């Protein structure tokens, strides 16, 4: 009980100390004078504005900077090499769609075959 009472009284004492220190006006004036001095310095040498980024820089950033751009470049080169070295493989993997885009008639039914089918029937 006494311990609890002691603790309560100590808490009261500590709480009464909160905000008990008064700031003299002279100190406030010194601090504000420092603030004005620093603001003058900041005005004299404002922080360097960030240069506006061009559209190329925006794309570069959107792709994840240099690491992202390297990946995109590698994928492009690999795709080009595959297309040149193994066009049939690419056409097969795409389900004939690449041939369709590139005008490869192999991806379309032969007109002659249609006649033949009609004749067979």
């Amino acid at each position, binding site marked *: 009980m006494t311990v609890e009472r002691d603790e309560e*009284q100590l808490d009261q004492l500590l*709480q009464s100390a909160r905000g008990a220190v008064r*700031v003299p006006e002279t100190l*406030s004036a010194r601090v504000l004078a420092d603030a004005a001095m620093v603001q003058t310095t900041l005005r004299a040498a404002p922080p360097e504005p960030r240069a506006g980024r061009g559209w190329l820089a925006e794309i570069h950033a959107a792709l994840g900077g240099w690491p992202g751009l390297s990946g995109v470049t590698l994928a492009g080169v690999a795709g080009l090499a595959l297309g040149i070295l193994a066009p049939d493989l690419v056409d097969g993997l795409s389900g004939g769609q690449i041939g369709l885009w590139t005008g490869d008639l192999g991806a379309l039914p032969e007109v002659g075959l249609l006649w033949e089918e009609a004749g067979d029937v």
Partner: protein
Amino acid sequence: MSGDAPTYAALSDGALMVLFANGDPGAARVLTARLLPRALGHATRVLGDRAEAEDIAQEAMLRLWRAAADWAQDGPATPATWLYRVVANLCTDWLRKSGQSALTDEADRHSDTRPGVEAQMIAGDRMAALDAALALLPERQRQAVVLRHIEGLSNPEIAMILDLGVEAVESLTARGKRALSAALSGKKEALGYDS
């Protein structure tokens, strides 16, 4: 910004730092009114030397102004905790230079037996008694007790300010409070408390 108080009152300290960096003199006034009493209070309680506490509070505020240009509003520290940290470090430096931080944790365990509290105490002056008792604590313990029980900060905030773990802060404040209680026991009548 016209400088009227109600406009500033709604702004956080961090927002005021940005305004300050943009040259707003009103922001400096409001930040000074909000933060200087806390810096001075902390330094005064920790140092027990009013003149030195004023110098340290001014120096800490000057560093705050200089930090405004690069202030990150979404950073982990608020201007208040940042300032407390600067004050705490400046107090530590001053106490070391003046040879007043020699008290160790070992010394702390026996602090309740140290003489001098009564001698320094003016009858009925509780603040003087509290300051005298605080002066007996080791420096880190004193800082933690002042920040927790007088400035009213949370343990995680104190951990950030003193660069300690939260558990270490809890231990420091608990031991500090026990030591304060011991130092003030027996003075209760003089302080006007029931014995």
